[in-house]
C-alpha cells in the first residue's frame, strides 16, 4: 500500500482567524448557476404525482366520498381517503393537556372538515395535470355546518364546536404570574388600561412551498423521504408513532430548501400521506404544494388578542408591571401548538425592567388553517404587545417614547439579567443600540422633517421597535404546557473526519434554508485545524442516515450559531486532539503539548521540519495503519453532540431559564401618511442588531435585512383574513401582497457586539428578528397621527384603509384606552 504524501499549499490564516470574516459563501456557486437541488427537482423513475382534494367548506360533515370515477381514468395510480388513513395510522401525538389533548388529528380529514383547504382525499397519477383532472372526479358530499372564525366568539354559548372530542373550542389555558401585582398597582401613580390589542394572522410565505418525494423500500420496510421539512427531528417523532414504525424507518433527506422561516416545520401530515401512498401503490410518489394550497392550509402565524391590559406606571414613566389576557387563535388543529402558549414567556418582560407580571393565556380552535411556527414564533406577538404598551403609555402620559424606553430598558450593567420568570438575558446594551439607531435615522432633525412634511399636507411620524431574538430553546418549557411531556434541554450534532486523502469532511444535523451553514461551519473548522475554509468540505443539506442527527436536529428557533457551530467546534477539537495523538505516535512519542497544527498539517512546535500533513494522517489511519500502537484510540472520525447547560424548569412556578441566548434588535421607522387616502410610505428605516460574536457579519446583516423586509410586509399588507363563512380572502399573491424591490424603503443598518458569556463561541442565535419592523411601523403611524385625532394603533396590521379609518374615527380607538 502506498503512502501518498503531497505538500499542501501554505494558506495564510488571518491573524484574528476566519471567524468574523465575511468569506465567500460555499453555497453560492451552485445556487447562482441554477444547480441547487430543491425538493421539486428530485425525480424517480415511475413516480406518481400527488394532488389533494381540498374542502371548499370551513366546517362540514363529510357524508360520502366516491373515488371510483377518479380511479377509473387511465393513468391514475390510486387514491387515499381519510377512512383509509384512520385504519392504518393512529392520530398524531398531542402536546396539550385536555381539552386539546383529546383531538384526533389524522393526516387527512376523517368524517369532518374544519377549514377551507383541508385535505380530504389524495389522488396519484402519471402526470401532475392528470392527478388534478382526476381530483375533480372525486365526489365528496358535505353537510355544511356553521363556522367560527373569530377567536373572541369561539367560546360563546352556541358557537359551533370544531372538535366534539374536546367538547368545546377551548384548547389550552394557563395562568402565568410573577412578582406582586397588588403591590405594583398600589405603588403606581397611574394605571393605563388598554381594552383590546390584536396581533394579526400572516406568515413568511417562503418562496418555495412544501413538497416531498417519498420512496418505500418493501424489503427493509423503510421510507426515504426527500423533503424540505425544516425540523425532521420533530416530524419524525410525530410520524413514527402515528405510522406505528420506529424512527429509523423514516429517512429524511434534504439538500437545498427555498426558505422556511418556521413555516416548514409542520408538514408531517402531508408526509404521512405520501408515505402511505408510496407503500399502497408500491411506487415513488411526488407531492408539490402549490402557492394557493400553501396559503389555504399551511402554517399560519399565531393570531393573538390581548384583552383588559392594565399597566402600573409611575408618573416619571417608570414601568412597574402589567396584567393582560392573551387569547390565541390556533386555527383548526394543534400541529405544534399549544407550545405558543409558553414560548412567549422566553421574553416575558420584553426588554424592560418591570418585575410584576400576570398573563392569562387562552388558546382556542377556529375554522381557519392551523397555525404553526412563523419567524419570531410566539415571542414576536408578545414583544409587539410590550412595544405597543410602551408607546401607548408614553403617548397617554405625554412622555417621550425614547425616554420611556431608556428609563425602563434592562441596563448593560444588569447583565446577565434574570427576568421575573427566571430566564437569563445573557448580555446586551439596549440603550446604546437605541442611540445608534436614532443617529442612523437622524432623530435630531425629526421635528424639522415633520414640519416640512406638514407643509406638503403629509403626516410624518417616527417609531421605535425594540425587540429580542431569544435562541436555543430549553425544550423543558414544554412541561409548563403539559407536565407529562418528557422533553427538556436541547442538542445538535456534527461529525468531522479526516478522509484517506486528507479531505476534511463535515456533516451537520441541520437543515439550512439559506443561512449559510456550510460556510460558517467551515470557518469554525478552519480556525481550529489552521487551514482554509476552502479545504473544508461541508456536506450540503441533511440526511438522517449520516448519523449526525439528534432529537432536536433541524434549523429553527435561532440556534445554529450556538447549537450547530458548538457541535462543529466540539467535533473539530476532538479531531485536532486525535491528529496530535497520531502525530505524537508517528514522531515517536512526542506529547500533544509539543505539537501544533499549521499549514494543513501537524508539526513539532520547536522543530517545524517534523511535519505530518493531514493527507498523511488520513492515509495512515484509514489505509496504512500497521504497527500503530494498539491503544492509540484514534479514528479521525469524530462525532460530537452539543448539549446546552439547561435545567428542567419549575413547572409549578412556571420559572426557569427557557432559552440560552438573547440577541436584540432596535429598529426605527419614519413613515409619511397621505391623510386624504391613508396611503403611506416608509420613507426612512434603521436597524441595529446585537447578536454577540458574529462569525460571518455579512450573513448576519443579511438575516437582519430579511427579517426587516418580512416585518414591513406584515405591518402594511400581509394578512390572512377570512370572511364570516371561513373563506380565506388572501389565498395567493394576488391579494396577499408581499413587498417587492420598489416597496422596500431606504435602509441603514448598524450593529454592536455583546458576546454571550454562555456559549462556546460567544455567539447568539439570531435571524428571526422578533418582528421589530412591525413594532416600529405601528409606533411610527401612531406618532404621525398625534395631533390629528390621536388614534391608538391597536392592530399590528395597518393597511391604508385602516390608517384612513383611524383618521376618520380616532374616537373608536381612543375608547380602548383609559388612564386612572
Amino acid at each position, binding site marked *: 500500500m502506498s503512502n501518498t504524501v503531497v505538500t499542501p499549499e501554505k494558506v495564510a490564516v488571518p491573524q484574528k482567524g476566519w471567524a468574523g470574516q465575511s468569506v465567500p459563501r460555499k453555497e453560492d456557486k451552485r445556487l447562482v448557476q441554477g444547480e441547487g437541488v430543491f425538493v421539486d427537482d428530485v425525480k424517480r423513475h415511475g413516480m406518481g404525482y400527488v394532488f389533494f382534494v381540498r374542502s*371548499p367548506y370551513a366546517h362540514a360533515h363529510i357524508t360520502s366520498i366516491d373515488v371510483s370515477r377518479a380511479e377509473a381514468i387511465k393513468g391514475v395510480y390510486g387514491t387515499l381517503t381519510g377512512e383509509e388513513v384512520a385504519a392504518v395510522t393512529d392520530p398524531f401525538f398531542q402536546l396539550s393537556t385536555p381539552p386539546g389533548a383529546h383531538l384526533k388529528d389524522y393526516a387527512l380529514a376523517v368524517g369532518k372538515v374544519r377549514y*377551507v383547504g383541508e385535505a380530504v382525499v389524495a389522488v396519484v397519477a402519471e402526470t401532475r395535470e392528470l392527478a388534478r383532472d382526476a381530483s*375533480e372526479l372525486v365526489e365528496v358530499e358535505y353537510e355544511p355546518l356553521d363556522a367560527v372564525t373569530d377567536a373572541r366568539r369561539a367560546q360563546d354559548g352556541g358557537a359551533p364546536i370544531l372538535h366534539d372530542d374536546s367538547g368545546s373550542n377551548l384548547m389550552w389555558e394557563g395562568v402565568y404570574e410573577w412578582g406582586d401585582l397588588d403591590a405594583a398597582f398600589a405603588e403606581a401613580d397611574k394605571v393605563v388600561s388598554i381594552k383590546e390589542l390584536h396581533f394579526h394572522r400572516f406568515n413568511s410565505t417562503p418562496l418555495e412551498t412544501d413538497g416531498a418525494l417519498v420512496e418505500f423500500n418493501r424489503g427493509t420496510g423503510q421510507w426515504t423521504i426527500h423533503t424540505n421539512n425544516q425540523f425532521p427531528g420533530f416530524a419524525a417523532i410525530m410520524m413514527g408513532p402515528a405510522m406505528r414504525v420506529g424512527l429509523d424507518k423514516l429517512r429524511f433527506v434534504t439538500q437545498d430548501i427555498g426558505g422556511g422561516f418556521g413555516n416548514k416545520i409542520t408538514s408531517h401530515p402531508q408526509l404521512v400521506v405520501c408515505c402511505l401512498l408510496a407503500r399502497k401503490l408500491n411506487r415513488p410518489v411526488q407531492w408539490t404544494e402549490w402557492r*394557493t394550497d400553501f396559503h389555504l392550509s399551511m402554517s399560519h402565524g399565531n393570531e393573538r388578542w390581548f384583552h383588559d391590559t392594565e399597566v402600573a406606571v409611575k408618573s416619571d414613566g417608570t414601568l412597574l408591571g402589567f396584567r393582560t389576557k392573551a387569547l390565541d387563535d390556533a386555527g383548526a388543529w394543534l400541529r405544534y401548538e399549544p407550545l405558543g402558549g409558553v414560548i412567549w414567556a422566553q421574553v416575558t418582560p420584553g426588554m424592560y425592567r418591570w418585575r410584576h407580571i400576570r398573563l392569562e393565556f387562552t388558546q382556542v380552535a377556529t375554522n381557519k388553517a392551523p397555525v404553526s411556527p412563523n419567524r419570531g414564533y410566539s415571542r414576536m406577538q408578545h414583544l409587539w404587545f410590550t412595544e405597543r404598551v410602551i408607546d401607548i403609555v408614553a403617548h397617554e402620559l405625554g412622555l417621550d417614547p425614547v425616554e420611556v424606553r431608556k428609563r425602563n430598558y434592562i441596563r448593560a450593567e444588569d447583565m446577565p439579567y434574570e427576568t421575573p420568570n427566571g430566564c437569563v438575558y445573557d448580555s446586551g446594551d439596549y440603550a446604546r443600540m437605541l442611540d445608534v439607531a436614532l443617529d442612523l435615522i437622524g432623530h435630531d432633525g425629526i421635528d424639522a422633517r415633520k414640519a416640512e412634511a406638514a407643509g406638503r399636507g403629509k403626516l410624518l411620524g417616527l417609531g421605535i421597535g425594540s425587540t429580542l431574538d431569544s435562541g436555543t430553546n430549553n425544550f423543558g418549557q414544554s412541561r409548563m404546557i403539559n407536565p407529562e411531556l418528557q422533553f427538556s434541554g436541547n442538542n445538535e450534532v456534527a461529525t468531522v473526519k479526516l478522509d484517506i486523502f486528507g479531505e476534511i469532511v463535515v456533516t451537520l444535523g441541520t437543515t439550512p434554508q439559506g443561512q449559510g451553514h456550510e460556510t460558517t461551519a467551515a470557518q469554525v473548522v478552519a480556525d481550529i485545524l489552521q487551514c482554509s475554509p476552502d479545504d473544508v468540505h461541508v456536506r450540503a443539506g441533511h440526511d438522517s442516515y449520516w448519523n449526525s442527527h439528534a432529537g432536536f436536529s433541524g434549523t429553527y428557533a435561532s440556534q445554529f450559531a450556538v447549537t450547530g457551530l458548538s457541535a462543529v467546534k466540539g467535533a473539530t477539537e476532538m479531531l485536532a486532539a486525535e491528529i496530535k495523538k497520531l502525530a505524537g505516535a508517528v514522531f515517536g512519542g512526542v506529547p500533544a503539548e509539543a505539537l501544533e497544527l499549521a499549514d494543513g498539517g501537524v508539526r513539532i512546535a520547536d522543530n517545524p521540519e517534523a511535519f505530518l500533513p493531514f493527507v498523511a494522517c488520513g492515509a495512515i489511519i484509514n489505509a496504512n495503519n500497521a504497527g500503530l500502537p494498539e491503544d492509540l484510540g484514534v479514528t479521525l472520525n469524530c462525532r460530537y453532540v452539543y448539549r446546552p447547560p439547561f435545567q428542567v424548569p419549575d413547572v409549578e412556578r412556571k420559572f426557569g431559564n427557557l432559552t440560552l441566548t438573547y440577541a436584540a434588535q432596535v429598529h426605527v421607522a419614519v413613515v409619511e401618511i397621505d391623510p386624504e387616502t391613508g396611503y403611506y410610505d416608509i420613507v426612512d428605516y434603521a436597524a441595529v442588531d446585537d447578536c454577540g460574536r458574529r462569525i460571518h457579519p455579512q450573513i448576519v446583516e443579511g438575516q437582519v435585512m430579511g427579517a426587516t423586509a418580512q416585518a414591513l410586509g406584515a405591518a402594511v399588507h400581509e394578512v390572512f383574513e377570512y370572511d364570516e*363563512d371561513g*373563506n380565506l380572502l388572501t*389565498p395567493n399573491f*394576488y*391579494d396577499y401582497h408581499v413587498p417587492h424591490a420598489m416597496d422596500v424603503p431606504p435602509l441603514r443598518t448598524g450593529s454592536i457586539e455583546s458576546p454571550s458569556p454562555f456559549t462556546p463561541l460567544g455567539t447568539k442565535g439570531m435571524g428571526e428578528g422578533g418582528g421589530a419592523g412591525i413594532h416600529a411601523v405601528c409606533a411610527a403611524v401612531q406618532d404621525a397621527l398625534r395631533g390629528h385625532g390621536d388614534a391608538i394603533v391597536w392592530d399590528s396590521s395597518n393597511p391604508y384603509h385602516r390608517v384612513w379609518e383611524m383618521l376618520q374615527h380616532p374616537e373608536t380607538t381612543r375608547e380602548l384606552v383609559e388612564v386612572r
Partner: protein
Amino acid sequence: MNVEGERTFAAPRAIVWKVLNDPASMAKTMPGVESFDVQDDKHWTANVKVPLGLGGLKMKVSMEKTEEREPEFAVMKMKGQGVGAMMNMQTKFELSDAPDGATTMNWAAEVHIAGPVGSMGQRVLQPIVNQQVEGVLAALDKQVQEASAGSS
C-alpha cells in the same frame, strides 16, 4: 354576500307568479343553461355554464322550493357545485300589486361562494354576482312578457 332589489313587471301578479313557479321558464332565466331536469314542482336540477368572458364556469345546480304562499311569497334554496366553484344561495321573493296592473317583486338573496373561484378575489366575485343577477332579472322580464303575451 347579500343582494336584494325591487323589480316591477308589466304583468298581473298571477302571471308573474306562474313564471316564477314554473321550472321550465325559470330554467330559461338562468345564465348559460345547457340542460335541466324537473323532478317535481319543488325540486329540479340544471347544468349551467355561467358565461365569463374568459371561458364558461360549469356548474351543476339543484334547486328546492322550501316555502310558498301563493300568489305572493316563496323561498328557494339553490346549491351549485362546480369544479371552480361551490355556490349556496337562498333567495326569497315577495310579489305585490303595482299600479296599472303591474306587479312589483321585492327579492333578496344570500349568496355563498367558495372554491378556486374564491381565490380570484372578492373584487371580481361581487361584480360577477351582480352581473348574473342582472342577467336573471332581464331574462325574467322576457319570460313574463312572453307569458302575458301567451295569456292575452
